[in-house]
């Protein structure tokens, strides 16, 4: 399958010394894939992403995005790229609609109708208000909408749901899924494991500038997650909580025994979360 992003032995140091913010990072992203780049603050996620979109100069390594060598960035490359920033960056003195109208003129490809995008992110009715008067969440949605204006083939999303209320965040996730179904490749940078778990085909864990692991969330859960069943039941009139492993140590037999001989109050299967796996693999939290 066609590779949309190819990174080999990428290094980056802000002080041009041996203190690397990104240290020997390599990965590939296939066309139509949603790839999650996960790690705590300062792990090197944004540095890597900024190199991929040309905001930071490539110092060492090989990077190819949409078939373009990042060493020699051409403006044409940006016709294929969309970028939604974590910090919303729109013209505060222009309306939401004017912002999108202006940006669409900066591409050489067919662009989307600004009003269509405004409706998609739920800003219809607010399109003629100056973006400076928007709330933080509205600005974030406008920044997100702008990143789709040129029908990107590769879509870089930096914390796309941060600061949004659950309903709007769910809408944003739906949009990401819809665009992905159309064949858009997504590079998702986040420290939010839930959104990564919901959306990503594969995730990379990055800590201290190094990638520790790349795989699909499902495989990771199978490999690293302990399969447990949490049960609340009554024993001799008292409510008891217990966990039973379904794979090891006679847990299955004990679980069957509890079900047969006691009144069950609640029972839940429990999978390891991506966050737990991240902590288990890297030994670090996500904050």
């Amino acid at each position, binding site marked *: 399958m066609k590779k949309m992003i190819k990174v080999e032995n990428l290094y980056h140091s802000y002080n041009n010394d041996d203190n690397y913010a990104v240290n020997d990072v390599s990965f590939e992203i296939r066309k139509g894939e949603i790839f999650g780049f996960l790690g705590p603050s300062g792990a090197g996620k944004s540095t890597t992403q900024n190199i991929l979109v040309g905001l*930071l100069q490539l110092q060492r390594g090989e990077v190819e995005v949409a078939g373009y060598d990042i060493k020699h960035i051409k403006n044409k490359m940006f016709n294929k790229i969309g970028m939604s920033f974590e910090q919303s960056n729109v*013209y505060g*003195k*222009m309306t939401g609609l004017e912002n999108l109208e202006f940006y669409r003129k900066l591409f050489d490809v067919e662009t989307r109708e600004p009003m269509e995008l405004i409706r998609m992110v739920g800003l219809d009715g607010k399109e003629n208000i100056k973006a400076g008067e928007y709330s933080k969440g509205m600005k974030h949605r406008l920044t997100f909408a702008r990143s789709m204006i040129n029908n990107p083939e590769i879509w870089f999303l930096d914390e796309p749901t941060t600061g949004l209320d659950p309903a709007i965040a769910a809408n944003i996730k739906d949009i990401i899924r819809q665009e992905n179904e159309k064949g858009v490749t997504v590079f998702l940078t986040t420290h939010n494991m839930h959104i990564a778990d919901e959306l990503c085909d594969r995730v990379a864990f990055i800590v201290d500038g190094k990638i520790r692991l790349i795989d699909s969330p499902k495989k990771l859960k199978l490999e690293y997650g302990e399969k447990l069943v949490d049960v609340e039941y009554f024993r001799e009139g008292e409510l008891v909580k217990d966990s039973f492993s379904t794979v090891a140590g006679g847990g299955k037999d004990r679980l069957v025994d509890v079900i047969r001989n006691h009144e069950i109050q609640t029972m839940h299967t429990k999978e390891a979360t991506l966050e737990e796996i991240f902590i288990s693999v890297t030994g670090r939290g996500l904050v």
Partner: protein
Amino acid sequence: MKLWHSFSKELILSSKSWYFYIELVMAIILLLILLFVVPEDFDSKGKEYIYLDLPQVVQERYAKNLLEEDLDEITEQAEVKAGGSVFKARLYETEESKIYLLDSLDALMAISKSESVPAVHVRANEDNQVIHTYYLQGYETVKLKNLLMVYHNRLAAHDVIEEYAENIPIRSLYQGEEAFNDRENLIPVFLTFNGSLMSLFIIAAYIFLDKSEGIIKAYAVTASSVWHYLLSKIGVITLTSIVTSFIITVPVMGLQPNYAALVLFLVTSGFFVASLGLLLTSYYKDIVESFGAMYIVILIMVMPNISYFTPSWSPDWVKIIPSYVMLQSFKEIISVNGNMSYVLVASLAFAVLGLDIFVLANHRFKKTLSL
């Protein structure tokens, strides 16, 4: 086309920003100052207050001599206010000074105290010698005091003084040029600082505003070049600079300046200064961090003003400061027979230098986009 879109967007944005209106208002204020505060010719004549404590005959003789030097040979009756009182005086206006002859020693003392100006009490002693008593204020230089002593003893060394005075070479710095009046003389200064150098601060303000909003990053991930963004900013600033310069120049100078040369020079010098502003801003995160560098640049740029108002002080190092060339170029542009070759060469130099700095600034911006 993208450059045009960026330029028109910047034009719309600047029309919605304070900086644009501040520039226009500043230009109007400067024009009003020129028209209503700055006289065409400053009154630089010194004022002398004299009380003649002399016999009537001598007084009349003294007054007659003054009248012969008076410009209109008419004695004016004047009133001089001092310390809350009004004193009558006879006013004689010569080519060098305005001389007030007062009626009393009290009037002379009151004026000397309240106005802090030198005053002269002229009296005769018992031997009928005329004695001049100067009431100085303490700030007078030794040279002036010596000059007064020499003046009153000039007969003693008449030959030496006359010979010395005759041998002092005097040459005009502006041969072949019609001198500006004081109002016109200020136009090059206003054009240099409001028209060209202001571009440095305005572009810094625009860029830092965009940096704080992250706009440059958003622009950098479009199919348009960063230099489009930078050049469109310069374009808007240059346009504003042309408008404000015309607001200042047209009402004062009328049709006298070479306006084509003015536009050309505003474009090239503005491009140079704005590029310099871009380069400076590329090194700093916000306007507060950049203050030190901006302050140094403006201090250097102000230096040629001293030379402009004191032409005898024009060391070579001042002549290479860009604002010196700007002042001289604007002066040539508004002169009747200005040296257009100088203006054209200066324009070319600013265009070439500006382009070099712009290329450097563009390179710096591309390197620091994620900051």
